[in-house]
């Protein structure tokens, strides 16, 4: 367990999880946004929270960070109400934006946020050395944020959330603007931080990243947790004996073609030439779809059959195509 990522061992939170949300109702004035949320982030686990825009993710994060008082229910961080100073001190927040001083170097930024987190002056150098080593950014310690690539900026953004030795790490869209190799590095980092014992709440639209790092997923829709649990269990429960299929075409099919695809449970996404859905995990299921495509004159460019995942769950729950 890394000292940078964890509070001192003598702190005992009486077994309270890093984050526990029970029966949370919250909103802004008369507008109710969250309706009875229950969610727990245990020690050493990553929970991915996904949901369409307007589902209440930002409101939930605000409530977790103690910036929005619940109208009913409770949010506790290591057993303390989220609004309490002690609870906030145990949260490391990595906002969606690169929330760092751009003209300052990584080391200078970490020193600023370490002091703001209450780290004593004399302990700051050791603290930032530990955090940089933990997040793998030591080599770039003296480079200004504005001169770093997106991937390094994201790492520095996460590092700044760790300087206060939090118990709960809130990662808001950590993969925005990050290329594939840097994304894989970030996934390794998140998994290893969880391995250090941090509870991690990951808010993302990046399903592949969520699948790569999260033990559990929660799908938020209309201010309610529509689904929550280990991804494999949820998939097995919702798509028993089914496989996910994705079909792409050289050009968007006409209305007759789209009707055929819809009849076989395939819906379009952002790309008008790409359709996805689930079919029975049998030779007849796949064969039936291929025969229907052939019969209607649709010539796919690619057809991929794979185990159903988070995007299929998301589409099924929210009735929305994958983002």
């Amino acid at each position, binding site marked *: 367990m890394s000292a940078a990522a964890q509070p001192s061992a003598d702190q005992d939170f009486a077994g309270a999880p890093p984050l526990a949300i029970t029966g949370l109702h919250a909103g802004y004035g008369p507008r109710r946004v969250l309706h009875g949320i229950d969610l727990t982030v245990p020690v050493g686990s990553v929970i991915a929270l996904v949901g369409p825009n307007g589902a209440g993710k930002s409101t939930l994060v605000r409530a977790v*960070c103690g910036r929005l008082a619940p109208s009913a229910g409770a949010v506790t961080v290591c057993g303390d109400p989220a609004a309490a100073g002690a609870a906030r001190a145990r949260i490391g927040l990595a906002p969606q934006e690169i*929330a760092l001083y751009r003209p300052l170097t990584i080391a200078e930024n970490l020193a600023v946020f370490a002091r703001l987190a209450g780290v004593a002056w004399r302990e700051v150098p050791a603290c930032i050395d530990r955090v940089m080593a933990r997040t793998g950014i030591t080599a770039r310690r003296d480079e200004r944020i504005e001169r770093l690539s997106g991937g390094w900026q994201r790492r520095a953004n996460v590092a700044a959330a760790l300087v206060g030795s939090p118990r709960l790490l809130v990662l808001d869209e950590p993969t925005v603007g990050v290329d594939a190799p840097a994304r894989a590095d970030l996934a390794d980092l998140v998994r290893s931080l969880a391995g250090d014992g941090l509870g991690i709440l990951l808010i993302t639209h990046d399903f592949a990243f969520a699948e790569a790092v999260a033990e559990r997923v929660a799908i938020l829709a209309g201010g309610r947790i529509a689904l929550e649990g280990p991804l494999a269990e949820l998939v097995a429960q919702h798509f028993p004996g089914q496989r996910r299929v994705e079909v792409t075409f050289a050009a968007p099919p006409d209305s007759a073609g789209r009707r055929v695809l819809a009849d076989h449970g395939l819906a379009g996404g952002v790309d008008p030439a790409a359709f996805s859905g689930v079919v029975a995990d049998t030779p007849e299921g796949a064969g039936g779809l291929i025969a229907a495509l052939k019969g209607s004159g649709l010539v796919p460019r690619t057809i991929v059959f794979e185990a159903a995942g988070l995007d299929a769950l998301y589409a099924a729950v929210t009735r929305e195509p994958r983002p």
Partner: protein
Amino acid sequence: MTAAIVRAMALSLLRDRGALAMTFLLPPVLFVLFAAVFAGTGGEVSVIKVAAARATDAASAEVFLAALHGAPDIVLERVEPAAVEARVSGGAADVGLVVRGDVAAPTDKPPLLLVTDPARNVAAALLAARIQRVLSQDLPGLALRRVAGQIEVLVGPFSAEQKSRLEQSVARAPELVASGGAELMERQPLPQRRAEPGVSYYAGAIAMLFLLFSAVQGAGSLVDERRSGVLDRIVMARGGVLALVAGKLIFLILQGLALCAVLFAVAQAVYGVHVLPHLGPFIAVALAASAAAAGVALPLAAVAHTRQQAQTLSTFAVLLLSAVGGSMVPRFLMPQWLQQLGVVTPTAWGIDAFQGALWRGEGMDTLAVPLAVLAGFALAGTAVTLWIIRRQVRLA
């Protein structure tokens, strides 16, 4: 924790060359320019262009115009009487002058007609002063004849003997003037301020103007912090919003002190403004004025949603406060109601405090009131900023 914010702001400023120049280079340059424009350090007097015409056959007219032509601060262009108005309205001359009667004799109507453009009334006032000087110093005989003629109108004609003595006096008039007997006025600067250059006022005025500008520039980082998510991170930290605002206030005060040090060092080196003999009160005033400028800038940055919005809002506020507060034109030259309005600006109090410390040589006891008012601006502005940001954090 507050020091961490100060450090972040200081490093950001040091790495922004544009902001550095705006904060520390532009103020002394503008001070030198303002001093030249308004306090006459670039030349003794203003030169005025006069379109002059003679519309009388009186001999004194030509003598008078010739004397006026020789005045060092007047560019005299001789034109026909009918052309005077056109020269003034066309902008070729600042003011017109028509000699339409005998300058050396009593007349029914004034012998000199000044044709003025209301947009340049000050030119007419300057010409009137020059004419008085020419009459009293260069043509005293002419002036004496005119006065004597007016006395004859009032008390009756002079006797032959009186006329003879008058002619002798007229003949000796230049000699009398040269010996100093005819001087009407003498300037006497206040003894205790005789050694103080008049540009002291503009050092204070420019200091206040740029304290506001640099504070606005520094406080604008609040907008960046909100938009980049740094504010969200700071709100979560132990120091919270209080550390953020306190850090910004302290940084802006330190920045203001540095700005004042640079500006008044130039004022002392170039114009001999006496700063070092009044160092204690000067530092106190610079501190309070910097804090007041921060008190204005922080709430403006807190209410702005974008840098552009902050820039527009702040420029408007700074120009307004500077104009009304006396950074551009001394307040005693303003209408009464504007002078009264100036009292609600930190600029007016700041300039007054700088003048008190450096010009009037006031001690801390006398400066207590302006210092307290400036501190009040700082406290009020900081409290408003805290309130605005805390509200935004709750509502965002």
